[in-house]
């Protein structure tokens, strides 16, 4: 069981959504809680069980009230847990904290959260183990941590306990004093923040806060404070740099109490771990920033220790101190010293790469005492960072990629500022030389990471120094050479061209590079060209062809020379991929602004493809382009291809090859599948079958019953006679509001059978289906082999207004037994006498024959009136006897192709008798259930 839980819990934390799709959150939570209460489960398993509650409380507890209940459950588990299972109790506290905070129970001051707060405060104050073994200390530490988290998530929750917490912190001499110090500082910081939000709060309020003697008036304020603390501002760091504003509390110079508290905290900060020290100093910085009555100089005695530290978080918090207090704490010498220190640290051998990168970032966001620009998050160089100083950070080939690029970026900024003269020029020359040494490493075939680094460095160089033509032109030259030797780098080149074009819109460097690449590709001898090279060249030329400014003649000459059968075997090889890449170039040329001058050579190339390329599809495609080129005007051509170009232009480089084929046409040619059914067929209300036989002009049928039978039977010599039933349906939208499908056109309905009782159906076309118009009527003609009830599958293809074609599945259509009934198919001029004689003839035959024929009796309780209604409602079209003749109704259902069901319905003393005769005994069960259904309906309505 334990192993099972381990597996399940790990499955949950790997993929909570997937796990919960196999069960429900409620069930899972119930299981967890049950197992937590189970005495047989070990504590290590129980600790595991708590992890979903710790890590994903809102997924497991899907509402606040469930969270509240869960918390109450967990607290009772906690209460019953023996004190010696410290680890489990610790984890329980963590789970409770997570559940209560995340389900907003703490924010709404729910009962469970208040109880929990009491439990935590109790544990935090319980120092009874101090003289024994100290075994409960981890629990106390966790309780403090939970209190701190509660206060962090719901600021000012503990403001009223400030004095208590301060006392605990001061008394504690074990390592736990750190936990109390952290908790106390946070509560102090939040309480002071809250005071800054009160109008008129001042020195006395502060004093009262620290002394713990909170007056009633202040408590009222506290309430309003809680309301406003919903604002997340109080959660934010208050050290925001020159542009940030800090709420302040005006106390005047008299805040001795606060000062003494802060001094003690600062003096003892040395006893905390560096991480906690940094947090504490950050909180104290915020406090001092909020209370102008306390001078920042209070930190001064600690600065040297902090500035000399090897701990990244301690130096960082010192920078934040500088950010908050600038020249009121740091002189300009200090500033120069700190900057030098950062430069040293950015390249210090003993530090890790991420730390060094972080220090470099700190240089670029250096909190200057007097910043020139308004640090809006952009990288700016501190004034004091001279080229001399920065030269310690020049990139070298020995750097790892991230360091190399960060240094390249920073030094570029430095030299850009210096200009091209003097030191800036020298530095720039160095950077370019460095770029070249990277390039030669790429040239020598280095690994992928270095290749990417080189292109990123090249982009950076261009980003800053594109305007320095002696370098940017030389770089183009070098890159072309590199490309020829390493064509597999084509995607990198295209990416570099794209990005420089996007980011450096004023510069034409990117076009220049593409032009140069076009030249080297088209001028290189074809003899050594491998198919790999060719494929990359074609990709590159396709990109070149996107540039309207670049003349494309040489591209066309190149294309024509590679496909001319006499000079190349490409055509006879008929490589499909290469063919498509050629077509892609052609396609870009079709919309090139200089198309007029390209007309003939382009037509020639397409013609060559049509005639000689050994792949049919390429030929067809080329033919299409050729036709478009030769028959459409330029505007139309551009129009036809424009959509595809927009979608497929610069982006299609990133798509797979198959997307390039057909390009813009693909989406319109592909049939897409709807996610759910869009419309369905419902049975149309029956049209009144007016009068039927009676209204017709009545002629007498054959006099003799036998003659009638004969005439009736003769009709069936034509096998198609009365072999079909026609059902009326309405095509209607399914009521989901997808406006995309409000208007549908060219709907083609397709049906398929679910059994063998009917002939296959033909497709049905409906011109349109508009949501605001009446629904379309669809006639479904069924040709039964056996007249049984059935279901039909239905699907449809249609077009949406945007021209896309869709395939959709409709809900199944159910054909009921009675839908297959037809009136007796006799010539329309037969009178009732004729039909009656056929009825009698059939009845007699069935009575005398055996074989497939069968007789049956169905009885039911029906009042006379009910019977009349039933006949009128269900049998009228099939009634053979006169409707006024109420002793016995004779009813005949004809079921294509050849079956008959005859009914003689009469009211006997005890019940209504339905005498049934049929020439197809297999229909008996169906007619039986049909009669059962209609008669029971009748009973219901009348009873």
């Amino acid at each position, binding site marked *: 069981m334990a192993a099972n839980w381990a597996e399940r819990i790990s499955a949950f934390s790997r993929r909570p959504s997937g796990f919960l799709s196999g069960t429900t959150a409620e069930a899972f939570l119930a299981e967890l809680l049950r197992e937590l209460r189970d005495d047989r489960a070990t504590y290590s398993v129980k600790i595991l069980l708590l992890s979903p509650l710790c890590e994903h409380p809102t997924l497991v507890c899907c509402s606040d009230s469930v969270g509240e209940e869960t918390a109450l459950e967990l607290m009772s588990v906690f209460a019953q847990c023996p004190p010696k299972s410290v680890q489990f109790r610790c984890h329980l506290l963590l789970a409770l904290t997570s559940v209560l905070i995340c389900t907003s129970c703490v924010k709404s001051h729910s009962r469970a959260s208040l109880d929990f707060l009491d439990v935590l405060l109790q544990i935090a104050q319980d120092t009874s183990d101090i*003289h024994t073994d100290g075994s409960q200390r981890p629990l106390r530490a966790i309780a403090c941590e939970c209190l701190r988290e509660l206060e962090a998530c719901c600021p000012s929750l503990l403001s009223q306990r400030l004095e208590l917490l301060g006392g605990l912190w001061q008394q504690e001499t074990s390592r736990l004093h750190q936990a109390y110090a952290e908790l106390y500082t946070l509560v102090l910081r939040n309480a002071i923040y809250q005071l800054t939000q009160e109008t008129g709060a001042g020195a006395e309020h502060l004093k009262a806060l620290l002394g713990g003697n909170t007056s009633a008036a202040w408590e009222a304020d506290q309430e309003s404070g809680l309301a406003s603390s919903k604002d997340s501002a109080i959660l934010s760091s208050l050290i925001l740099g020159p542009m940030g504003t800090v709420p302040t509390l005006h106390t005047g110079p008299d805040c001795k109490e606060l000062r003494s508290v802060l001094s003690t905290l600062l003096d003892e900060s040395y006893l905390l771990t560096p991480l906690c020290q940094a947090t504490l100093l950050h909180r104290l910085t915020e406090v001092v920033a909020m209370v102008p009555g306390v001078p920042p100089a209070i930190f001064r005695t600690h600065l040297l*220790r902090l500035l000399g530290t090897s701990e990244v978080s301690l130096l960082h918090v010192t920078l934040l101190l500088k*950010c908050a207090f600038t020249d009121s704490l740091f002189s300009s010498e200090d500033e120069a010293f700190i900057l030098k220190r950062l430069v040293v640290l950015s390249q210090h051998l003993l530090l890790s790469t991420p730390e060094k990168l972080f220090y470099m970032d*700190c240089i670029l966001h250096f909190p200057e005492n007097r910043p020139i620009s308004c640090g809006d998050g952009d990288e700016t160089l501190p004034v004091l960072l001279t080229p001399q100083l920065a030269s*310690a950070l020049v990139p070298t080939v020995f750097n790892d990629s991230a360091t190399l690029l960060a240094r390249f970026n920073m030094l570029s900024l430095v030299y850009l500022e210096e200009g091209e003269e003097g030191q800036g020029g020298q530095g720039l020359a160095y950077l370019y030389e460095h770029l070249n040494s990277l390039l030669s490493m790429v040239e020598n075939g280095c690994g992928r990471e270095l290749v990417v680094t080189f*292109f990123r460095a090249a982009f950076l160089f261009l*980003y800053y120094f594109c305007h320095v033509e002696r370098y940017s032109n030389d770089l183009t030259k070098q890159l072309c050479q590199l490309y020829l030797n390493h064509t597999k780098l084509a995607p990198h080149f295209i990416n570099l061209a794209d990005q420089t074009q996007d980011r450096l819109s004023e510069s034409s460097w990117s076009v220049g590079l593409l032009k140069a690449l076009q030249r080297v590709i088209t001028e290189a001898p074809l003899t050594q060209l491998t198919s790999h090279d060719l494929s990359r060249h074609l990709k590159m030329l396709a990109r070149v062809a996107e540039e309207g400014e670049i003349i494309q003649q040489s591209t066309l000459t190149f294309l024509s020379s590679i496909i001319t059968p006499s000079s190349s075997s490409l055509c006879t090889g008929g490589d499909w991929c290469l063919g498509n890449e050629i077509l892609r170039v052609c396609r870009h040329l079709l919309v090139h602004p200089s198309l007029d001058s390209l007309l003939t050579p382009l037509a020639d190339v397409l013609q060559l493809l049509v005639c000689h390329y050994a792949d049919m599809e390429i030929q067809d495609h080329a033919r299409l382009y050729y036709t478009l080129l030769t028959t459409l005007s330029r505007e139309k051509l551009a129009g036809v291809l424009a959509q595809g170009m927009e979608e497929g232009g610069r982006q299609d480089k990133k798509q797979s090859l198959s997307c390039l084929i057909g390009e813009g046409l693909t989406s319109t040619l592909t049939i897409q599948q709807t996610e759910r059914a869009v419309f369905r067929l419902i049975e149309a209300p029956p049209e009144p079958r007016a009068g039927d036989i009676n209204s017709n002009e009545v002629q007498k049928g054959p006099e003799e019953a036998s003659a009638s039978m004969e005439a009736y039977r003769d009709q069936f010599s034509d096998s198609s006679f009365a072999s079909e039933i026609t059902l009326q349906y309405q095509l209607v939208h399914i009521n989901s509001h997808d406006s995309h499908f409000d208007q549908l056109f060219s709907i083609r309905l397709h049906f398929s059978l679910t059994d063998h009782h009917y002939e296959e159906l033909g497709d049905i076309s409906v011109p349109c289906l508009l949501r605001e118009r009446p629904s379309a009527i669809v006639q479904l003609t069924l040709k039964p082999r056996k007249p049984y009830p059935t279901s039909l599958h239905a699907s449809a293809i249609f077009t949406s207004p945007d021209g896309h074609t869709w395939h959709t599945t409709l809900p199944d259509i159910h054909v009921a037994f009675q839908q297959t009934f037809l009136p007796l198919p006799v010539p329309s001029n037969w009178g009732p006498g004729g039909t009656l004689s056929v009825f009698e003839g059939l009845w007699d035959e069935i009575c005398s024959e055996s074989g497939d024929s069968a007789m049956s009796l169905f009885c039911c309780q029906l009042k006379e009136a009910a019977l009349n209604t039933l006949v009128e409602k269900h049998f009228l079209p099939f009634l053979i006897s006169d409707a006024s003749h109420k002793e016995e109704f004779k009813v005949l259902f004809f079921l294509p192709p050849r079956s008959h069901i005859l009914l003689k319905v009469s009211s006997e003393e005890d019940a209504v008798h339905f005498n049934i005769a049929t020439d197809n005994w297999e229909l008996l069960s169906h007619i039986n259930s049909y009669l059962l259904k209609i008669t029971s309906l009748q009973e219901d309505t009348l009873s």
Partner: protein
Amino acid sequence: MTVRGLWIISHENGGNLSIRFSRRFSTVEHRAKSLAGSSYVAVPEESTFLQLLLTELGLSDSGKNYVALRDDCLYRPRSPALELHVDGPAKGILWPVLTVSQGPLILACLPLVDVPPDPRPPLASLLSVSQGLTLLAGLQTFLLGSGSKPDSEGLGSRLAMVPSVLLQVCPLGTPLDVPLPGTPATPTAPTSVGTQKQPAWKTGLHRGRAVVNVGLIETVRSMQYGNRSRQDLWDVYGTVTCKCEVEGVLPNVTVTLSLPPNGSPLQDILVHPCVTSLDSSILTASSVDNYDGSAFSGPYKFPFSPPLEPFRLCSYTSEVPVPPILGSYQLKEEENQLRVSVTLKLHESIKNSFEFCNAHLPFFNRDQMGVVDMKVSSGQLDVSKEKNLLVWVLGQKFPKSREVTMEGKINFSGPTPGPSDPLCTKLTAYVKLHFKVPDMTLSGCYVDQHSVQVYSSAKPRIVTSRELQSKEYYIWNSTGTAPVSSGQMMM
């Protein structure tokens, strides 16, 4: 000052990278949601997170030459924090994801952004970033050991201890400490009932004889080009490691570093956080400054209260006038063979007594070595043909002349190509020196046994030691082009 989540990723039995441990801090996530407001991006599920992270690190799709998302040339000024581009319904950019990686291990965490998220704040404004880095580095040391060679054998068992380690150092997403290397500390016996508070970083109290051990190691690096147009470079940095077994809750110890007369001042001094106070003059000298003759040159006093475990008290750099060994390396390409000439000269101020001294001569981008015809004036030569490597073992002493030479020819006629390197092509080649000299420092810096002061009842035993070692000590072939390694020379 908190992290939203923590991930530990490593190779699964030599196979794919996978997440071996992850922890989300739900209450921090709760805060992240209310702090970020509409720009909040939720942390994706494990597999998505891993895939996005590997793409950003350039580790995904290793079989493919170019992947647009991974290899885009656009430089995003973001290191050491990555952006993960989360797709799907919870679309957005997850930032700042911090990572550290070493050996088989990648560790990542996502610090909470506790300042307004728009426009994106600089990393430097988020204290949680440096704290996250510290936490990750601490976990890395815990999992792999602090030695130079990561011990990946015990990785599995130490990974299993991570949950209980986190319960102590980061129970709710706020890092409180870094894990102690080795087994998690069991709660120690009640320590003091006095008024002196025990430092939170001190796991217990020492009982027994007081011993203070101070070790000073200097490391020298060098790039020698043997070329007039290029200045040779070398630098020295030292670290002082202490192990103090001293009684008391907060005992005071002072270690003093001294320089010989006329020694150049120690620069870039970094100290351990247990150092209680520093004199401002100690910090003034910096390697990025112009040398000021009037700078303070010691003695350097470091008063501190030691933790129980060994720790690095301080580190420094120093500018020394000459490299300990000056070398020259010349290669000449002759019809299918290479003429090699190496000279090494030990400076007269260096004690001629090595623990070891070896010179490595690797040859890249050539066929395997065939005939090796080399003569050395001292020591012995090991030839490793399959690695195309010559190792010249110089032993414990240079000859009296303090100069050794190696001359000869190598024929690269082996049947298969040797190792390759993108940097060392054609005549770009180097000799790399590995040596260690006990009981000396290049800067002359030393810790006098008598200068170590311990303020405690019992008289402690004090042990000091020092040594010089080499690292990245290169002598480049002067007939080829050598890569630039530092910008110091150009100004």
